[in-house]
Every structure is written in structure tokens, then in C-alpha cells.
């Protein structure tokens, strides 16, 4: 026989039996001059203690000094069985894990109860995540699920590994660099995160992917402090050498496009990635003159808000950017802390937010928000959307 320690078990006197009340194991009710103990394993209603002049027996027993009844009520096995039944009932409730909602009926219309991710399993970010290649097999299968908006097998923190090999141009360094089997575990940082965002709304189902660790090579944001690579644009991120290093035809983009998941990178309405809200700041200036939607690049970096959930170094309202924290960075620093090279040691990595004309932001190697000269060599975590 299994025994469990339950602590104190209370007998609750519920007064005169009421056919409209619910009775649980351990409840005592008065009925026709006697008291009866409820020994039912499940909640009962409308079952009187006495039926046709005799004790009902299945759910009720005569109380008072009836030691057998008391023993039944206090039975550890009975209570444990009740707990098991309750747990089984809870586990039997269908859960829409994609949205984290309970499905309360077959119509799936009762989605008002939002369960924390830790209960639904909708987030793996506190753990290591699952290799989605092992789940889906092929990038095409993953893409099909995403395109259909079926996220039942995808959790925040799961990842799709890619390996980059080839030469790319580091525009800030002014030299070609080589990657050899450089592994990036592209973690699911958000699911439909930018849904309907932008002046050309993003209405395709999409995964936001951000690598667990950084590329093995560091890059500067700019070749010369304050110097823009592209002066035809109006945001410092778009004008930076690092934007070019990531997105140019001889940059890192083609190396990622050559991977199995590369065919599904979101091109955006202009072929330069999603549209997002950015500060308008011209070359040679340090203060934003306004805000607007711009192409972010098919490869991009998170902003300070998207990492930390709020501006930290970027405190001037003129440098306002889209607020909101990527789910993978919420509630834990585990994925904010990144290494140089997959499985390497802790490093500092760029964010795309500028403080002024010569200073950008990064996650420091002590996993804190810091500002740094735009010519510093800092690790890079290229992010992208797949749709």
C-alpha cells in the first residue's frame, strides 16, 4: 500500500444538508437528526445522505463516533487518489500551446485564460531549447509550419542550427574575412513578433531568429568614427559599415542564404528586410530630427529596447525606437549573454541603437548595457525573419 504524508486533514461541518450545495470528501452535513460524513472521491451535488430510509452508503456514511467513516475520510490513500484524479483532470484539459490558451470547449472560443509560458511549455528559453531540425527534419517542413501559422511544435528558445563557410567583406575593416564551419544556433526569439507592424504591414506568419552565440569574428560598426558608409540613407544603422557587412552582396547575407533555411529569409517590400520605426538622423549630426519607417536589412541586430525592454544608454527621447522586448530576452539574461563563436566564451555584442553620431550600444561582456565608440571591434549576432 502506498502511503503519503498529508499533514492535517480537516473535517468541515457544512450544517444542514442542502441539495443545492456541493459536498467534498471530509464534509459533514446534518440530515434528519443525524450527521453524515461525505466520503465521495469526487464532488457531489443533489445526492442526499439517506435514500429510501437507508444511509446512501456510496458517497455518505453515518458520522458521529463511526470510526470506520472517520478512517475512510482520513485515509491517505483516498486523499492521494483524489489528488491524482484532480491532476489527471487538469492534464486532460486541451491546451493551445501556440497561443498559450486553454481550450475550454470544442469551439475553441474560450481563450480568455492565458497561461504562463512555463505552464504551457510555450517557452524553452530558460532551458536549452530543442533542435528544430530534429523536430521538423527539413527547413521546408519548418517553413510549411510557419507559413501555415502552426506553432504547435515551436517554442521560444528552440533553435535551427546553421553553419557558415565562405568569405565575406568586412566593410569597416576594409578586408575580406573567412568563416569556416561557423555554427550559429538560430534561436526562436519571437513568434509572429512583428505581426502587422510597419508602414507596409507584415502580415505573413514569421519566426524571429537570433543566434544563441555570435559569429567568431568581431566587426566594427564604422571604419572611422562618425563616418557613414552609405550617406544616402537617413538612419545611422542603415548608414553603418556593419549594416553593409551583413547585407551586401559580398557580405554575410549570401553565406546565410546558402544554408538550408536561407531560402525563407524575409525579403521585405523593398528587398531590404522588414520595415520598422527608426530615428531619422543624418550624417554628421548627433541628434535625431524625427522618426520614420525604414528598411531594416534582411540581416539586422536588435535594438536596445528589444534586448532590455527599455532604453538604457539611449535616454534621449530624440533617439526613440520601437519599444518592446523580444520574448527570448524577457525574464532571464541567459540569452542576452552570448559567446564569441558557438560554445565559446562570453563576449560583448552590438545592438543597432546609436546614442549619438559616434557612439553605439552593445551588450557588454559583463552582460550589461553599455555604450561604446562605433569603431570598436565587437561581436555580431545577425538576426533575421523567416516567413
Amino acid at each position, binding site marked *: 500500500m502506498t502511503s503519503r504524508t498529508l499533514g492535517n486533514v480537516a473535517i468541515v461541518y457544512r450544517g444542514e444538508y442542502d441539495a443545492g450545495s456541493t459536498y467534498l470528501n471530509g464534509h459533514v452535513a446534518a440530515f434528519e437528526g443525524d450527521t453524515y460524513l461525505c466520503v465521495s472521491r469526487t464532488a457531489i451535488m443533489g445526492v442526499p445522505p439517506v435514500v429510501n430510509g437507508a444511509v446512501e452508503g456510496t458517497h455518505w456514511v453515518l458520522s458521529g463516533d463511526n470510526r470506520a467513516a472517520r478512517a475512510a475520510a482520513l485515509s491517505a490513500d483516498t486523499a492521494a487518489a483524489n489528488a491524482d484524479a484532480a491532476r489527471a483532470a487538469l492534464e486532460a484539459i486541451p491546451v493551445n500551446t501556440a497561443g498559450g490558451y486553454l481550450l475550454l470547449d470544442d469551439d475553441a472560443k474560450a481563450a480568455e485564460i492565458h497561461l504562463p509560458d512555463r505552464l504551457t511549455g510555450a517557452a524553452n528559453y530558460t532551458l536549452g531549447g530543442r533542435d528544430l531540425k530534429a523536430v521538423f527534419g527539413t527547413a521546408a517542413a519548418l517553413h510549411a509550419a510557419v507559413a501555415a501559422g502552426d506553432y504547435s511544435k515551436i517554442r521560444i528558445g528552440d533553435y535551427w542550427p546553421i553553419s557558415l563557410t565562405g568569405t565575406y567583406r568586412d566593410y569597416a*575593416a576594409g578586408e575580406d*574575412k*573567412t*568563416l*569556416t*564551419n*561557423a555554427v550559429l544556433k538560430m534561436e526562436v526569439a519571437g513568434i509572429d513578433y512583428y505581426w502587422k507592424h510597419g508602414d507596409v504591414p507584415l502580415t505573413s506568419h514569421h519566426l524571429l531568429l537570433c543566434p544563441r552565440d555570435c559569429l*567568431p*569574428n*568581431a566587426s566594427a560598426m564604422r571604419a572611422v568614427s562618425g563616418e557613414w558608409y552609405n550617406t544616402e540613407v537617413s538612419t545611422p544603422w542603415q548608414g553603418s559599415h556593419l549594416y553593409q557587412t551583413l547585407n551586401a552582396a559580398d557580405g554575410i547575407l549570401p553565406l546565410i542564404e546558402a544554408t538550408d533555411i536561407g531560402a525563407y529569409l524575409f525579403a521585405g517590400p523593398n528587398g531590404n528586410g522588414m520595415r520598422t520605426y527608426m530615428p531619422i538622423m543624418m550624417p554628421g549630426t548627433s541628434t535625431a530630427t524625427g522618426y520614420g519607417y525604414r528598411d531594416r536589412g534582411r540581416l539586422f541586430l536588435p535594438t536596445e529596447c528589444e534586448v532590455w525592454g527599455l532604453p538604457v*544608454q539611449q*535616454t*534621449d527621447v530624440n533617439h526613440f525606437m520601437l519599444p518592446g522586448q523580444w520574448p527570448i530576452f524577457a525574464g532571464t539574461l541567459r540569452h542576452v549573454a552570448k*559567446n*564569441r*563563436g558557438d*560554445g*565559446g*566564451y*562570453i*563576449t*560583448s555584442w552590438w545592438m543597432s541603437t546609436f*546614442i*549619438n553620431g559616434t*557612439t553605439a550600444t*552593445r551588450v*557588454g*561582456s*559583463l552582460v550589461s548595457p*553599455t*555604450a*561604446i*565608440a562605433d*569603431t*570598436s*571591434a*565587437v*561581436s555580431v549576432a545577425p538576426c533575421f525573419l523567416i516567413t
Partner: protein
Amino acid sequence: MTVSICIDGVGRVTGVHPADLTGNTGWLSVPEEALTERTGLGVEALAGTLEDENGVPRYAYRDGYVEARTAEEIAADTPEPVPTPAEQWRADVENALVELADMIAGGE
């Protein structure tokens, strides 16, 4: 045991990795002793202190060994401190006051 270290164009150590990353630009494989001999630090401890609070590399790779850079070397690489918004505002106000004083003195 060997580890990989990443060296920039002037010999500063910018990365450490336990696996063989040779083939990636700047990475070379060295015996673990090359890191610990002159720094007195284990690989992980050294990796956690690769750069200072300004992002300046603390170590250089010389003669086959990783060693601490001098204070002068680090200072030469340290960027100008970034003014806080309050400091910037104060500087802007002071500049405006100076300009105003010049205008008054100049009779403009």
C-alpha cells in the same frame, strides 16, 4: 590541450574558444599554457576579462604567449568617455551662455 584565440591586426586578443576555430579569420590554435603562462589565469577566467569596461582588449599575443597589455597601451585605445544626457545638456547650456556673452560683449 589546445584552445583557439582570436587576434586582431595588431596582435590584441579579442576572442577565446575551447574548440578549434582555425580557418575563421584571426583565429589560431595555441596550447593552453600559452594563455596561462604569463597571465596566471585559467582559460575561463582569462576569457571573462578579455576586455575592460571600455571594450579595450586587455591582452596581447606576443612571442607565442598571451600577456597583459600595459596601462599605456590600453589608455591609447580607450575612447573618449560618452557624456551622459545630463552632462551633454549642461555642456550645451554652457556653450549657449558663452555664445550669448560673446554676442553681448560684441554688441550684436
